[in-house]
């Protein structure tokens, strides 16, 4: 195996598109006795029909319940006897998959992966199990103040935009999903075009590429298929303040989310927003927000900020878990910090701190096979170029205080913030 540079780049990442438009990315790690497979294909909850919300999640859970060749038991006998794992997920814009195994078991893992992608069987008994699992998940989530505050925020901010949909669905939509729905949705979404997979670990990338070629090359692209991702609009901010609360009885802690829309991943504002967000609510003990809410006022165990940037835009939020009695005080403090952040440039020292943080932690994010695989997929998904990670340091260095202020003022408008909460605000009857 060829020795690799500490930071992956064009000379040690193998990128190999197949004729059917599957894209393979590989990087070796001769110190690792195991391998990671990670990938995605277009789809996800954005394609859930309005009356079948949760369909993407349901489908991702149903894929491994049997194929035309192997039963559920046989699939998991192979995986678990080898100490391997494989799983599927549904994101907003794509279905994802990930697995890992000892390097000696890579052929088995790849063989199962392609069989499940192409020939799932959806046995009805398993679909009944999954439906009940999803319904119970909804019940459990309804008691989770953190998750419910996030849902309230997304629904209030995105309104009818697909980003406001609940990817787990509802009792009604999950109960309505049939085997025929799942088969049709699988046929619609699961095609080789746009499927991207990364293999990282104790295998030579050329050997991994050969295995991918063997397993995936006879999967013909469906040229007559309808477009998988119809056009959706970009996200738009609220025009005025919005307040939404979900009351959940008998909860000690109230979860609070305040924010607005954020930049899309490929926009020029993305990197300034990432660094700015770090100053606002990540750096050290959760940045400025952590400092004022946790350290100075002792109001919360966690209080920080998060930027979510996707293809159509995203969100920029401040979150905290607080005692309900401190709701007003905490929201006032957060509003004041957002106002300062969106109206004044960050301090030069703050910016130099977060630049050093982002530049310094890069090797830490690349120490595991899964970490590298994740970076390779991000590079491919957003067309960042194979030397993106090696150029990252320079890209960070170029960000200015003015760019951060421009991003903050463009998205975090103090007079049009969404405030969402979940927990117990009403006194017990």
């Amino acid at each position, binding site marked *: 195996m060829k020795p690799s540079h500490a930071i992956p780049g064009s000379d040690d990442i193998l990128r190999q598109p197949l004729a059917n438009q599957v894209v393979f990315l590989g990087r070796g790690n001769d110190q*690792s006795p195991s391998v990671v497979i990670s990938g995605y294909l277009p789809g996800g909850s954005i394609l859930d029909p309005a009356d079948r919300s949760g369909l993407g999640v349901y489908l991702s859970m149903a894929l491994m319940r049997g194929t035309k060749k192997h039963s559920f038991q046989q699939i998991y006998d192979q995986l678990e006897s080898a100490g391997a794992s494989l799983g599927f997920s549904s994101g907003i814009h794509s279905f994802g998959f990930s697995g890992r195994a000892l390097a000696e078991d890579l052929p088995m893992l790849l063989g199962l992966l392609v069989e499940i992608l192409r020939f799932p069987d959806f046995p009805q008994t398993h679909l009944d199990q999954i439906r009940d699992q999803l319904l119970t998940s909804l019940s459990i989530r309804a008691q*989770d103040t953190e998750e419910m505050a996030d849902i309230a925020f997304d629904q209030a901010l995105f309104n009818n935009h697909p980003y406001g949909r609940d990817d787990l669905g509802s009792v009604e939509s999950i109960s309505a999903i049939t085997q025929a729905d799942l088969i049709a949705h699988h046929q619609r979404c699961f095609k080789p075009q746009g499927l991207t997979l990364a293999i990282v670990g104790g295998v030579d990338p050329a050997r991994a590429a050969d295995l991918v070629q063997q397993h995936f090359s006879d999967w013909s692209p469906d040229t007559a298929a309808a477009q998988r991702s119809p056009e959706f609009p970009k996200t738009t901010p609220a025009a005025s303040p919005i307040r939404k609360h979900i009351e959940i009885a008998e909860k000690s802690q109230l979860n609070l989310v305040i924010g607005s829309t954020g930049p899309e991943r490929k926009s020029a504002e993305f990197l300034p927003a990432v660094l700015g967000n770090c100053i606002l609510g990540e750096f050290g*003990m959760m940045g400025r927000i952590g400092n004022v809410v946790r350290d100075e*006022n002792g109001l919360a165990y966690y209080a920080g900020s998060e930027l979510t940037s996707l293809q159509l835009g995203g969100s920029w939020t401040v979150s905290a878990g607080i005692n309900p009695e401190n709701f007003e005080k905490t929201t006032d403090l957060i509003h004041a910090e957002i106002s300062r952040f969106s109206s004044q440039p960050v301090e030069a020292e703050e910016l130099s701190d977060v630049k050093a943080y982002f530049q310094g932690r890069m*090797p830490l994010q690349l120490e595991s096979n899964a970490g590298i695989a994740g970076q390779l997929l991000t590079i491919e998904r957003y067309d960042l170029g194979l030397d993106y990670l090696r150029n990252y340091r320079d890209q960070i260095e170029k960000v200015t205080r003015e760019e951060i202020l421009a991003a903050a003022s463009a998205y975090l408008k103090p007079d049009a913030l969404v405030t969402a909460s979940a927990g117990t605000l009403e006194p017990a009857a």
Partner: protein
Amino acid sequence: MSDQIITATLDNGLQVFLKEIHTAPIISHWVWYRVGSRNETAGKTGISHWVEHMQFKGTPKYPAGVLDQAVSRDGGVWNAFTYLDWTAFFATMPKEKIDLSIDLEADRMQNSLFLPEEVESERTVILSEREGSENEPMFRLNEATDRAAFDHHPYGIEVIGEKKDLLSISRDDLYEHYCNYYSPANAVLTMAGDFEAKEMLERLQKRYQEVPERAVKRIPVTPEAPLKEERRVTVEGPGETVYLRLVWRAPAGSAADIFPLAVLDSILTGPSSLNMFGSGSISNKTSRLYQPLIEDQVAIAFNGSYNTTIDPYLYAITVIMHPAHQPEEAVALIDRQLDQIRSGKISLQEMEKAVKQARALFAYGTENITNQAYWLGYTEMFDKYAWFSEFVPSLKKVSVEDVARVAAQYLRPDQRVIGMYKPYLSKGGSA
């Protein structure tokens, strides 16, 4: 990759474990103290965890807010954990920056201020942390079953402590706890990463040797005898979902029986991973309990867990019930599988699978340098590092008879606690 470990004990009693790993230009530096909730007494529960928080609230050299930012500024990641037997602080950093982590850990080993205003601010932060946990039905069920599983041992109380104690613990209580237990003689330093061990040991000696040794007063902790009869607890609360948790006293982490228990756990509920970082997990769909609990739709999900602790702690099976079934049905199904295991009805294939799963989980864990430094210290908290390096060979030596004996000895129906979380308006009508 070399598996060689360099060890030393400084004159002040600080133990040092170093492992060179040259796969990435980073170093993970940990300091472990032999103090956790096991060392707490009634009225002072949660004090170890609170002291851990206070270690971020400043010394004269690194005032509050400076310390965590200093590590981040140098591209490091950091965190701290308090557990039953130990408290640990770590930073993983670019190798050329590691001196910062060395300096600040040596500094806060002796110079933390515990300013009264910082103590009061942190009191409400910790109460908030506990309130966040109380929101979760599983925390409430764990707290009730742990308490029922012990009559007097501190393992019966959650690490975060009881609310009444968190309201009354004083600044002097915290400072006394810190001065007593944060002695170099009560600490283990572990480091893994891209360094030359001999040179690094000299650097560590130079910085840590100046921390004076302090005598540690220890409160005797007596392990409890097994339960004499089954105990049951029920927690009621909001929601629609019923949770079940069965716990039994397990062997101590250093006991030979922990290995048959690990095999039993893998066979019964799927393998538990003891890795803290970068491990991944293996599903449990071919474990003994999957068919009767999940495929037959008695339950929605389940898992088993054991811990490696100084004194015997707990083996636990947690089940999320299907809304159409009662927890007693799951208890009966678990009993049926345990009966089979106790009678030795275990296939060679199941034994081999358990060993391979353990080998795979260990391989996944070695990818991550932080995880390797973690294992160096974690094992020293309840045994020796050899426990880790010999784990897979130890599992290979486990026989069917060993697993059956451990099931019969530890997982007896009359020595368990059955805990249930039931919603006020349980659909089964039993709440």
